[in-house]
Each structure stands twice: as structure tokens, then as C-alpha cells.
């Protein structure tokens, strides 16, 4: 009997070509879009419009501006430097405020090449940004730091020397001469491209990049978003499928079936099993695309992936059936499902990585199947974990499916008795 319901639902889906396309083609397409968009969110490939002004207007500052304009992803919009400082700053701020520029760089004075600058004075370079685009400011700042380190190490050395001079007393004439010879030598190396960046001004910026233990060519974004999109679509399509329970209730099909010997239990279990299988196929397609286009080690990790996929699909299917059992009308179910999917996906990390969220929201995320499914798939593909590390996520997904199934059956049985 359960297989009969499964077959009826499969034929319904197979013959509704629109639903078929939405169920199996739309998810991998969206995954590709998400993967492309979000896997570049570390700053690589970003294109930033930057308003630029050079008040120093020297050959050295011009060389500095030229180097900035050569940074990949920076699109400079020069601002006239003939106005007063107040006009320049307000002009740059206005460009950022109105959105004409993502950030602004103002070279206010000649960057000091020799250690005679005043430490208490204002910084020669000012980056202006907007809090709504804090990431853009951070990227610009980081790129400038890297530029100075690689192409203008003399600026870092001069800054350090000036600092030492201020703290421990003036240099002797001989020391001063040696420093100036060293700085000239560094400038020559920079100009000839021979600088190896070994002079690091005391390692002002430190970066440490962790590589995948699974040994795949992935910065974590692909495997993350494959899982994130998969669980999002599992929920989305399961909710749509479960709404058919309400349609069948209003069309009298459920009345007819409930009058039969199987009752509500057969109807609900049959639908839940179908939605689980449908979800498994959806997830398979998404990860197959991730394997084919992005090199995820899907085949190598197939067993662990399959367990996670089956439990995630069951969890989504039975949560959807629970929602449908609680709703009286299609309208209710549509509203509830849209809300539920959006909330679970947002809090659970399907829309943005949870590490970017506030702590309380990260904790709340553990109440969603999204967080556990993503965590499990990240464990499989990114951290290279095995069953010993993944059991908790599997347990939570499986338990949520089981509990939702029991409540759905109880609710539907009660409904059938009303």
C-alpha cells in the first residue's frame, strides 16, 4: 500500500513537467550561482570602485597611485586634488555615501621615505569607507598593506626607524647615514623588482590559510554551499510536496482513503517515503554537479555522503509532513512553508556561513536541520571526518525525522477522526 502511494506521487510529479523541472533542474542551477557568488567572498575576484585623490602630487606619490591602480579588482575614479583638504575629504566621503564608490583612498601627504617624520602627525594615506560596506574597506586596507610590503618596503622601514628613534633617542650621524644608504638600496631593489619582501616592518599583518584535509582544490566554499543549497532545496521541495496532503484533503481523496482499511497512517507514511526519495535524488544531482564542475570528492566519500543525504532528506520530508499536518488550508501551508524554509535556512547557515553570525544566532542554528546537515557534509568533504565524528549530526537528523514522523501520524489520525 505504501508503495502504491509512492507510485501515485511519482506519476503525479513525472507528468507535471513544470514541477519536475523545478524539483530537479532548478536546485543545481541555483547551487552553481551560489557557488560562484559566495566562494569568491573572501576578497578574491571582488571588483571595487574606489574614489582616489592625491594631494601630495609628487613623483613618488604618483608612483604609489600607479601601483594602486594596477591592483587587480580596483577601479579608480580620480578626484581633483586642486581643492582644499576639506573639499577633498568631503568629496571622497560623498562619493562613498552616495554609493558611487565602495571606498576612497586619499594620499594626503608625501609618504615619508626617510626616518624624519613626526610620529604624532596624521597618517599620509587615508581610507574612507561606509559601515554598510565594511568588508570593502577591509579589503582595500589589506590590499594597501600588501602593496606597501611588496613594492614600497622602504615606507615600513622608515616608519619603524622613526619609531625606534622616538623611543630610544636620536641616531648618531653614522647610524643615520647607514640607514639612508640602506633605504636607497631598498628603493633601487623595489624599482628593479628584486625585492623579496623579506623586510616586513615587524610582521604588521599576519595571515594563516588552512588547507583542506580532504586534499581537494577547494577553499571551503564549494563544499559548504553544496551542502547549504542541498538542505535548503530539500526543505523547499519537501514543503511543496507535503502541501499535496492538504490538496488531497480538500479534494476528497483523503476522505476516500480514510474510509479504507489503511487509514491515515498509510497516506502519511507513503507521502513521507516519497518525499524522502525525491529529496535523495535532488541532493544527488546537486553533489554530482559539485563533483563534475568543482572537483568535490563525491565518489570517494560516497558512503558517508549517502548516509548524511538520506538522513537530511528524511528530516526535511518529515518536517514538511508535520507542517502539512498542522495546517488546515493550502494558504496556511504555503505561508507557513515559506516562512519555515526561509527561517531555517537563514539561521541554519544555508544563506550565509554561520561563523559570520552573532553568537546567539549561531547557537540557535543548532535547532535547524540545515546546520546539522551542512556540518555533516563539511565534515565529510572539508575536514575529512569519518563516522566516528559524524555520528552526532546523523543522530540529530535521524531523530528529528523520527519524531516529526510520529507526530505527523498522530495528528493525521486525529484529523481523520474529526
Amino acid at each position, binding site marked *: *500500500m505504501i508503495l502504491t502511494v509512492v507510485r501515485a506521487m511519482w506519476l503525479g510529479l513525472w*507528468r507535471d513537467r513544470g514541477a519536475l523541472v523545478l524539483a530537479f533542474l532548478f536546485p543545481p542551477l541555483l547551487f552553481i550561482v551560489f557557488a560562484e557568488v559566495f566562494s569568491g567572498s573572501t576578497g578574491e575576484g571582488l571588483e571595487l570602485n574606489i574614489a582616489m585623490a592625491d594631494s601630495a602630487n609628487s613623483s613618488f606619490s604618483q608612483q604609489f597611485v600607479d601601483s594602486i591602480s594596477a591592483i587587480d579588482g580596483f577601479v579608480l575614479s580620480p578626484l581633483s586634488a586642486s581643492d582644499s583638504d576639506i573639499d577633498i575629504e568631503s568629496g571622497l566621503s560623498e562619493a562613498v555615501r552616495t554609493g558611487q564608490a565602495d571606498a576612497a583612498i586619499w594620499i594626503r601627504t608625501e609618504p615619508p621615505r626617510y626616518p624624519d617624520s613626526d610620529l604624532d602627525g596624521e597618517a599620509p594615506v587615508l581610507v574612507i569607507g561606509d559601515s554598510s560596506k565594511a568588508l570593502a574597506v577591509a579589503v582595500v586596507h589589506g590590499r594597501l598593506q600588501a602593496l606597501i610590503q611588496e613594492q614600497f618596503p622602504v615606507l615600513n622601514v622608515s616608519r619603524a626607524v622613526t619609531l625606534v628613534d622616538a623611543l630610544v633617542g636620536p641616531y648618531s650621524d653614522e647610524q643615520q647615514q647607514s640607514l639612508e644608504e640602506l633605504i636607497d638600496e631598498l628603493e633601487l631593489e623595489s624599482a628593479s623588482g628584486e625585492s623579496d619582501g623579506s623586510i616586513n616592518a615587524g610582521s604588521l599583518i599576519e595571515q594563516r590559510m588552512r588547507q583542506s584535509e580532504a586534499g581537494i582544490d577547494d577553499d571551503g566554499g564549494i563544499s559548504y554551499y553544496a551542502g547549504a543549497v542541498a538542505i535548503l532545496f530539500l526543505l523547499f521541495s519537501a514543503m511543496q510536496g507535503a502541501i499535496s496532503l492538504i490538496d488531497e484533503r480538500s479534494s476528497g481523496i483523503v*476522505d476516500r482513503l480514510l*474510509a479504507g482499511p489503511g487509514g491515515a497512517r498509510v497516506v502519511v507514511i507513503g507521502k513521507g517515503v516519497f518525499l524522502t526519495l525525491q529529496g535523495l535524488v535532488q541532493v544527488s544531482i546537486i553533489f554530482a554537479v559539485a563533483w563534475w564542475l568543482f572537483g568535490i570528492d563525491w565518489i570517494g566519500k560516497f558512503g558517508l555522503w549517502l548516509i548524511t543525504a538520506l538522513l537530511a532528506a528524511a528530516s526535511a520530508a518529515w518536517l514538511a509532513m508535520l507542517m502539512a499536518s498542522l495546517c488546515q488550508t493550502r494558504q496556511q501551508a504555503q505561508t507557513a512553508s515559506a516562512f519555515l524554509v526561509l527561517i531555517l535556512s537563514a539561521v541554519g547557515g544555508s544563506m550565509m556561513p554561520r561563523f559570520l553570525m552573532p553568537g546567539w544566532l549561531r547557537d540557535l542554528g543548532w535547532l535547524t536541520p540545515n546546520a546539522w546537515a551542512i556540518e555533516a557534509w563539511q565534515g565529510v568533504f572539508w575536514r575529512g571526518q569519518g563516522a566516528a565524528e559524524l555520528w552526532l549530526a546523523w543522530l540529530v537528523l535521524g531523530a528529528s525525522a523520527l519524531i516529526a514522523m510520529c507526530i505527523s501520524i498522530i495528528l493525521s489520525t486525529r484529523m481523520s477522526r474529526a
Partner: protein
Amino acid sequence: MSEAQHSIILSIEQLCFDYPGRPVLQELDLALQHGELFALLGPNGAGKSTLIRALCGRLRPHKGSIQVSGLDPHRSAAARKSIGLVPQQIALYRHLTVFENLEVFARLAGVQRVRVSALAQQALDQCGLESVAGQIVSELSGGWQRRANIACGLVHEPALLVLDEPTVGIDLPARLAIEQLLTELSGQGMTQQMTILLISHDLEQVERLADRVGFLINGRMQHVGVPIELLSQQFGQMHEWHVQLEQKPNAADSELLNRLELQPEPAAGQLYWRGWLDEAQQAGARMQRLEQAQIAVREWRVRQPGLDSLWRTVYGMAQPESIDQTNEALAR
């Protein structure tokens, strides 16, 4: 008919069911015999749907008992298996073909896999659906969908077929075809006779089809019997007199119509009037009175009372005592 054919298929005794603060079924009694077509009549809200849910086992009676083929449908899957329900809506999987729907509902009704195809084919034959067996339900006309709806209710050969408004919303030829089907299902010539419980608001259809009828009044089954006998008991030799006016009568005309013991039909804008006559011939003299008063009459007729007349009487749309009043008026 053999003794077995006279056996009781549905037995309801002293059935009571309340919704919170509202009694719906009160000490309801009903017994249906094998092969009969019984029409359950009652206005919306009378409790017909509740009664169907109870006899399909979905509701536990607060008092009394229901037995289908000798078993309690609330407790026994076998009892529920012997019921075929045809809801008022087209309760079919719309993306499946007619034959696939028959297979699905046969399986869900507990038919063994090996028998499913044969029974689906039998249901196709019974309902005249062979020509559309392979068509998707959503692509069929309303009449074919109605037939398929019935076929899915009887595919598992139930002893009791419950039909809720099986001909609502379809054209005359389709309705006549379904009426023919119902006649055949409950009558001779079929491989297995069924007991049919029909719910319909089409009283002319009920009069044509039903072996017996029953009116659900205040949660009780009343006026149960063969239609022609019920009408005879209720109205004797009385005739119903209908008058349709050309235009709405003025106050003086209304007064005359009332003196002739005609009552306006509710919600008909005082264009339709109805009264009772001891003999059909009395209508002529009365029509002369209307003619003399220059009341323009579009149409008038005298007819034997039907189930609609009985409906009006039992549900208070025409006061039973008005019959006597009419007689008195006529005597005057």
C-alpha cells in the same frame, strides 16, 4: 430475491453524536438491505456528512452502534473495506489515468495485487469507462470525471457504496448516464449487487432512483419509506397548484392570492405562488377569479405532490397546517 439478498448490510441503532455544545445525531436508527438504493435527504447542516463519517469509521459514536456487514467500522478494517465512498468532489489523482486511479484506489482499499487489474477492468466495464481508461483524469470532461469518481468507489467491490451528490455540476446527458449506472449497480444484471446510500439534493433524481428515502430532521431519521407511499401518506389525494405571475402583485392582488390560499415561494420575488387543491378540477374556478381581477398569469399548473413537496413540508418551508386551512378555505 433470495433470503441472502434481504440481509442487512448497514445497521444503525440509537446513534448519537455531538460536537461541543451541539448535538448532531440523536438516537438515529436506520437499516439498509442488500441491493437497495436508499436516499438520505436533508438540508445543509442536517448532519449528513457527520453520519457518513461515522459509518465510514472516522467518528466514534457517543452512543449507539453502527454495523456494516455485521462489523463496527470504527474498529474493524474489514468493515471499512466493505464500504466504497464516492465524495462530492472529484476525489481522484488528477495526473494519473483513469485506469491508474482505479489501480491505486483498489490497492489502498486492500485488494490483493494479483486481483487489482481484473477489478479495475471490471469497474471500467461497469461504469462505461473503457474508451477513456488511458486518459489523464484532468483532461476528461466533468461527466467522465464523475463516472471515474464513482468507479474508484466501487472498484474493490464494496457491499455498501456511499455516494455524496454524484451528479452535481454536470450536464443532462452525463447525469442521465450516471443515473442509469446507479440503477444497474443496485438492480439486476450486475455480477454483484450493491447497497447504495445516496445523498442528493436533486429530489426528482431521488424520486426516479431511490427504493426508499429518509429525511434527517434534528439529528433523527424520519419519514423513512418508499417515496410514493410517503407521498400518499402525507398528502393523500391532494394536488399541488402552482401559479407563476407576469409581474409582482400589488397589495390588492396579494390579498386576493392569499384569499385563494396561495402562498408565495420564499425568495422568488412574489412571482411564484403555491397552494393545495382537493381535486385538480378546482383550479379552473380559481384561475377565473384571478382572470377577473386582471392578474396576469404567465403559467399555472396542477401536479401530484413530489418529494420536493414533502421536503417543504418536513423542513417547514410550507406549513403542514396550511393544507387544512386550504381545505377550509375551499369549503367556504
